[in-house]
Each structure stands twice: as structure tokens, then as C-alpha cells.
């Protein structure tokens, strides 16, 4: 990336997070509604001190929590979205992209690269709910695919952290659906090469993300209380007219039904991932 673009979206992922916990001294927990002192929440990795709810964290913060300090080297930062369909709902997709870029200071919803977790080299991909609900269009699909390919080439464990409530991005139509196949193909090759893929599900991971990369891990972890599933609440209501039971489609629900391996508290994530990487190292 050239220096003239340093104030543009997609600039190096460093420094203060631009989004997530709102500015101001106090914030409200979206789960228990308690008023919380922002500094205290931040000190606890954005986990509510009252109810242990895992709040949203932006990509920079996720990187800081998961990887060793300053070890992240971002890949393919210049990959940017465009509007292949000329899509327009109430506003055009182009306008939406620009608004989301200005809001998040990111080109799109995914960041990928390499780094270290307690000294272990890994390839990492993160989808960020702040950018169009973390939905997967061509850019997210391309970056995750390349990340998996690079991980295969470099023989690195692959870690994807999903925060994709939007599933496949409607505004890129069928091309978004095809990203599911594209990323899956790259993950299949990574898997075939004998390398480890750990998928970490965070709130929320739904639809096309859940129905592709998020559920293709050798190991699947989830943060507590995350919303994870295929169809959204509204879609289910529109189809079967059933109120969903308490705790439906949460991490705990998925653990109970056998679809994830472990629920891991954010404070333990780095340690657990490091331990799992060690277990899967070929001797």
C-alpha cells in the first residue's frame, strides 16, 4: 500500500480501534443492560463484568488479543470491493460500501495475514461484523481463499475467526454464494496437505458463513453465548411460525448438539489455541 493512501480505508491494522465499544465513559451491556465503566470492560477484553457477555470486538482488537504483540503481518490489504451487479436497494451498493468503509476504516469485512500465537506461527483470517454484518462477498471470499492457499504453501496452521452475521452478501448476488464454494475448495486443499485448521466462531456466525468456512474446521471452537446457525430467527418464523426456544442457536446449544468441540472464554482463547496447535503438530 502506498503512503498516500494511509488515511484511506484499509490502512494498516494498528493503533486504536475505530469502532466497537462506543466512545464515552460508560457503556451498556447489550445482554444484561448493566451500565458499565468502559475502561473496566476494555481491561476485561470487552467481556461484561456483570454477566460475562462477550461484546463485539473490532478486527484490530481481535488481533491484539489472539496474536503475540506486533506479530501480525497483513496480507492482500489492497483487495477492495466493487459493484458487479449494479445493485441498488434503498441506496446503491456503491454508496453502502463507501459508507461502511468510512465507518470502519476497512476496505471490506475480512482481514487476513500471518502472525504468532505464543511463538507458534499461524495464518489468520478474521471476518468483522462491523462491515456490512461481516457478510461474504467477492473480497471476503478472495481473501479467505488466498489465506488458506498461503497457509497450505507455507505449511501453517490456519485460524479463521468468524463474525459473519450477514452470511453471503446479498448485494453481490450469486457471486457471494459462489464464494462459499471457492473458500471451501481452498480449505479442502489445506486440509488435504495435512495442516491444521481451527475455526473460531464468534457472535454472530450465520447463513453462508456458517454453511461454509466456519463449519469446516478440524477443530471448531466458539466464544460463549455467540449466535450461530443457518437460518435467522425471522426466516424460521416466516416458514414454520414457531417461537424459538430460549438459548436456541447459541454456542451452548451447538455444543449440546455435538457441532462444536469447545466453548472457550475470550480470556483463554490464545492459550487454548496454542495448546491445540501443539497437539496437532506432526512428530
Amino acid at each position: 500500500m502506498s503512503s498516500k493512501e494511509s488515511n484511506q480505508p484499509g490502512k494498516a491494522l494498528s493503533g486504536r480501534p475505530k469502532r466497537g465499544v462506543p466512545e464515552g465513559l460508560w457503556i451498556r451491556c447489550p445482554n444484561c443492560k448493566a451500565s458499565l465503566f468502559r475502561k473496566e470492560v476494555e481491561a476485561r477484553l470487552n467481556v461484561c463484568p456483570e454477566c460475562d457477555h462477550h461484546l463485539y470486538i473490532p478486527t484490530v482488537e481481535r488481533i491484539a488479543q489472539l496474536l503475540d504483540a506486533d506479530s501480525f503481518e497483513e496480507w492482500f490489504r489492497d483487495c477492495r470491493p466493487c459493484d458487479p451487479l449494479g445493485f441498488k436497494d434503498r441506496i446503491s451498493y456503491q454508496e453502502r460500501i463507501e459508507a461502511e468503509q468510512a465507518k470502519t476504516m476497512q476496505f471490506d469485512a475480512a482481514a487476513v495475514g500471518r502472525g504468532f500465537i505464543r511463538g507458534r506461527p499461524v495464518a489468520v483470517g478474521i471476518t468483522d461484523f462491523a462491515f456490512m454484518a461481516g457478510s461474504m462477498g467477492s473480497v471476503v471470499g478472495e481473501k479467505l481463499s488466498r489465506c488458506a492457499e498461503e497457509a497450505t504453501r507455507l505449511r501453517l496452521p490456519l485460524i479463521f475467526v468468524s463474525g459473519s452475521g450477514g452470511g453471503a452478501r446479498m448485494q453481490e448476488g450469486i457471486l457471494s454464494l459462489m464464494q462459499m464454494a471457492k473458500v471451501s475448495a481452498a480449505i479442502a486443499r489445506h486440509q488435504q496437505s495435512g495442516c491444521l485448521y481451527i475455526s473460531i466462531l464468534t457472535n454472530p456466525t450465520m447463513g453462508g458463513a456458517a454453511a461454509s468456512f466456519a463449519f469446516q474446521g478440524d477443530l471448531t471452537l466458539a466464544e460463549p453465548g455467540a449466535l450461530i446457525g443457518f437460518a435467522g430467527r425471522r426466516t424460521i418464523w416466516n416458514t414454520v411460525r414457531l417461537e424459538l426456544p430460549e438459548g436456541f442457536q447459541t454456542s451452548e446449544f451447538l455444543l449440546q448438539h455435538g457441532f462444536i468441540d469447545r466453548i472457550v472464554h475470550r480470556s483463554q482463547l490464545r492459550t487454548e489455541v496454542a495448546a491445540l496447535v501443539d497437539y496437532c503438530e506432526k512428530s
Partner: protein
Amino acid sequence: MSSLSRLPFEKEIYALEDLLASLETKEGGEKGSSEEIRRIRKEIASLKKTKFNNLTAWETVQVSRHPDRPQLLDYVEMIFEDFVELHGDRAFGDDRALRTGFARVGEFRVMLMGHQKGHTLQERQECMYGCAHPEGYRKALKNMKLAEKFNLPVICLIDTPGAFPGIGAEERGQSALIANNILEMTRLATPVICVVIGEGGSGGALGIGVGDRVCMLEFAYYSVISPEGCAGILWKTANETTKPTAAEALRLTSRDLSRLGVVDHVIMEPLGGAHRDPKEIGNTLKASLLKMLRELVTIPVAELLEQRYMKFRKMGVYLENESQNQSAGSA
């Protein structure tokens, strides 16, 4: 034909056809003899041509959902022989929305699978309107693996509004099962042909939709989300105005997908749509499948898998270093 299955934009065609039928009855045995009848026949043909060459996206969706449109089991009757259905998913149950089995087509033994929506209300309820549950996707993969073991090509006929959105489906891991199918299909070591014959509804379609050739019938649609779902989210409400708008915006017709490089072939339908002449679409589909099978079985498996990888790897449109990378085939 019941008036329920008459689509709004087919009204004029039906009016003329009814008129023709009554004239023909009046004339008794001397079918097509009078000047009037010949004139009406000509008019019907030209009207169908004009209408169906200019269908809007929403009208295409309606044609794709036509209750008389041929479905998987109709094609089993028409173009496949010796179908042996395989029911079990080895874990939960027999999903009637997604059928799988051995079949013969031309000189080939194949593994055939696809969604079945049903024609009558009772059939539709039994088949969950073609919306498969996780057990359906598990059954499909189990039988794809079987096909791989014995080098049988896999043919997937896609016709679903989407994978079933319900409590049981979520409890049994709908997303995990679809994810697994997609991943395994990218490397299934036998030829795979996918044809969207009616509705190509999102993940439910893609769960049996990754192949060496991906085709669509002319008036099928294939989309990331149903027009109703899209309208409900982006236009806040799905009604008679927003659904056509969403259908248009999603670029879901065979022409759009061909242009975007997502489908390899568009299989042309008879004049007025497949529901008007099932036999003809059966013949066309069979010829098309045989042509693709003959091509694909000659390709060594390693090469086939590399081509399949690259086919999907190229999909997507994005900007990078001042240039635009596009999926193959886009203008």
C-alpha cells in the same frame, strides 16, 4: 389445467388457447382446417415467443416455480432408466425432499440426486416443498462417496427454494452438513454435473451444487437468497412491488448467471416454458447431460479436480492494484 397454475402474464396466451380449443371442438374431427384456427395458432406461437423472450426476473421466478414444471421424479421417468433409490443417511432418517439413487442414462451408469418438491399439495407436504434437512445432505454426500468409489459420475438436479429453516434442521446442524457437502464436492474424485432445473435457492442448492459443469434450464433461477427474503431484509417488507424489484436486483436469471460466468451452459426450454412440453425439455436435458458426460469421462481425475478448483477459484469480482479482477465470462 387448473386456473391456479396459470401465471398472470400467461393470461393472454391461455385466453387464445381456450378460444382455439373451443373452435376445434366445434369443428369436430377436421382439426386445424379453418383459416381462423390457423390464424389463432400462429398468434399463440408468436405471443409465447414475445412473452417468454422478455420475461422479467420475477416472472422467471414464477415460471421456475410453476406447479406443472417437470421435477426430479418426472425426469427419472422421462430420461433415466432403472432408477434404484437409496434412502438411508446412516444417522437420522430418510429426507423426502432430497432423493438419491443409481440410474442409467444413455450408455452411462450414474449416481443421480436432486430435490423433489411434489406436484400436489399432499406430495408437497411429504417433500417439505423441496426444502431438505441435514439428513438429506448427509445422504447425498454418502452416496456421492459411493459414486466416487465405483467411478460413477454424479448428476445433481437442483430444485429447492432453500434448505429447510426450522428448529429440527438447526438442532441437527444444517449449516455444518451443507458446509461439509460443499467442501467434499470440491474434491470428489469423479465427474459431477449440476443442473438447476427449477429453483436454485442459496445454500440449499449449493449443498449439491459444486461440480465440473454447472448448468441451468433457461427459466430456472439461482440466487444467494430468495427474492422474498431479500425484499424482506433490504426493502423491509416483501410485497408485490418489492419482490419483483429484489428479483431484478439479484441478477438471478440464467442469462445473468451465464454473463457472470457462474453457469457453463443454459439449457433452452420449449416455447412457453418447460411446463408446456415436459417431453421436449426431457429430450433436451438428456442430450445435454450425455454430451457433458461424454466430455467429462475422458478427462483424467487429477486434471478434472484441478479444473474444478480453478472454475470456482476464479469466481468473484473485486478491485486490486487499480485493476478489476472478474470471474470468467463476464463482460
